């Protein structure tokens, strides 16, 4: 038992409880500033995580919890995302009627769930961390109790999320029944024997349903557009970045460290899912006029691109996923920060609300345009190199699996389709005529700092990708590829 390994998670939970307590003694007008305290605390924990090393994997809680390079990579990822999301929610605070301090605290509890998910080495921890994330997100989604869209998004997420977790638990029960263990390390040894048992395979498939729901992969993507559209903007941002990344780390752990022998036989299945997810997300995004809904469909498409890396089943593919998530983090957070500031008082989040944005605030216009260009995958921004790495990994796989070339064709088709709607947003910013509102938008300094950080990171990762690629290559050594 080595509690000190999970010191980061305990620090996040402690900070969340401290925010809840501080809420009791804070006068109402000051409550929104608690968000800055929360962001500072999470930022400090992020800096502390930079000092941590994980040369050899270390285990805690009866080997349920593992701290290795992969876990540490994702913990830093989640911590950084949470800092920006907390800054964003301070900006959003006046649109939430009551309980803003609870909103901050819930973001931190969801963060703790994600960090535990990064370290999961046992199906028990997979389930508990996933539910910690999901149940807090039910509340975060429906936090604007006065807005019908927010409540509706909450109910839809609740029903479909609970259904997915029921499948997940039943799947875990079947896996446990055959293998008599839930630990990934022990499953690795016994899976070879159990692989012939259809019940075991059924259980694993049900587990994949639960995880596919989290990352919004086809055919479990149905909730994503509605929930992205209805939720408060900071929740949507955290859902797009944190919740999706948590789904991917769990998927990688289950597929490549619990049952690598079985995963090898699932290449075709994963390839089909990846291709369908890319096509579905991109095609449905075309007619969208609501910016958050558009990003919801685009996030489905990006889950599809990342699934390419899973289907490639080599370390190049998995490290490409890590790189892609890093690029996606900065890009999506920049986009949602702009949405959060611009859509103040705009009902419906329509794209027309960003018309003429370059006259109202050049920084916001530039950030949103760069984010769209990076999501579309145009060099020299980060998104381009991420897609390049993923496709390269699939090409490597193509030598043994000719179907891969079809998958590459589908992915490139998806990228071409996505140019249309991403550049449509850029066009709306700079070249649309007759925008009603042309008053300057004031951007507070914490928002400016986070936007500049995201823009700098988008360019840095696009121009000098070596460093993050090396870190990602190191991190995926924890998987059995």
């Amino acid at each position: 038992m080595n509690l000190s390994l999970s010191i980061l998670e305990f620090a996040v939970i402690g900070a969340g409880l401290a925010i809840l307590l501080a809420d009791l003694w804070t006068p109402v007008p000051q409550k929104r500033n608690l968000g800055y305290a929360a962001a500072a605390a999470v930022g400090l924990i992020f800096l502390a995580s930079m000092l941590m090393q994980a040369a050899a994997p270390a285990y805690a809680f009866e080997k349920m919890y593992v701290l290795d390079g992969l876990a540490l990579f994702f913990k830093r990822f989640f911590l950084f995302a949470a800092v920006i999301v907390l800054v964003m929610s301070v900006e959003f605070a006046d649109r939430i009627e009551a309980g803003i301090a609870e909103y901050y605290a819930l973001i931190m509890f969801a963060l703790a769930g994600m960090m535990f998910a990064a370290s999961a080495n046992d199906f028990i921890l997979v389930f508990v961390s996933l539910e910690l994330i999901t149940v807090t997100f039910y509340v975060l989604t429906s936090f604007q109790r006065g807005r019908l869209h927010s409540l509706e998004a909450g109910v839809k997420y609740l029903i479909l999320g609970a259904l997915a977790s029921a499948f997940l638990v039943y799947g875990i029960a079947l896996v446990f029944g055959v293998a008599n263990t839930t630990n990934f390390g022990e499953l690795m040894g016994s899976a070879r024997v159990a692989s012939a048992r259809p019940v075991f395979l059924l259980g694993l498939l049900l587990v994949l349903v639960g995880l596919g729901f989290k990352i919004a992969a086809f055919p479990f993507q149905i909730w994503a557009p509605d929930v992205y559209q209805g939720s408060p903007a900071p929740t949507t941002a955290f859902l797009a970045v944190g919740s999706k990344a948590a789904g991917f780390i769990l998927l990688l752990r289950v597929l490549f460290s619990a049952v690598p022998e079985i995963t090898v036989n699932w290449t075709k299945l994963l390839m089909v899912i990846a291709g369908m997810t890319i096509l579905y997300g991109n095609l449905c995004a075309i007619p969208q006029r609501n910016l958050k809904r558009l990003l919801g469909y685009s996030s489905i498409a990006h889950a599809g691109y990342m699934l390419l890396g899973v289907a490639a089943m080599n370390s190049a593919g998995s490290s490409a996923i890590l790189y892609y998530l890093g690029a996606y983090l900065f890009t999506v957070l920049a986009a949602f920060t702009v949405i959060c500031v611009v859509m103040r008082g705009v009902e419906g989040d329509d794209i027309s609300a960003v018309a003429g944005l370059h006259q109202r605030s050049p920084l916001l216009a530039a950030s949103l345009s760069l984010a769209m260009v990076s999501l579309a995958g145009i060099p020299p921004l980060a998104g381009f190199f991420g897609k390049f790495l993923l496709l390269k990994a699939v090409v490597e796989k193509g030598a043994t699996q000719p179907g891969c070339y079809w998958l590459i064709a589908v992915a490139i088709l998806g990228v071409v389709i996505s140019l249309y709607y991403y550049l449509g947003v850029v066009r709306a910013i700079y070249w649309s005529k007759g925008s009603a509102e042309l008053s300057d938008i004031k951007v507070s300094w914490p928002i400016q700092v986070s936007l500049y950080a995201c823009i700098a990171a988008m360019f840095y990762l696009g121009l000098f990708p070596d460093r993050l690629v090396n870190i990602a290559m190191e991190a995926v050594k924890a998987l059995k590829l």
Partner: protein
Amino acid sequence: MTPLHQYLFLSALLFGVGLAGALTRRNAIIVLIGIELMLNAANLNFIAFWRFSRHPELATGLMFVLFSIGIAAAEAAVGLALIIAIYRHYRTANLDQFDSMKG
């Protein structure tokens, strides 16, 4: 003692009934009840597998069920609170009516 496969059959039946309820019923509370049935089917599976396993002294199955019951309670609490909030606005708990977002 009742053999293992009968427990598994019962649990599969419970899961099927829950799934059918969750998919066909329109009342949000009934849907939640269906989902709870599915979770309990999984719990029953866990307990049965644990009881019949070669090493019942390893309490993995029991432990999972304890976690699962706790989480299901949290989920139900949040879910019911949400349904009450939405009932205040719509005056109904019928899921078909919560469909203002489309596209």
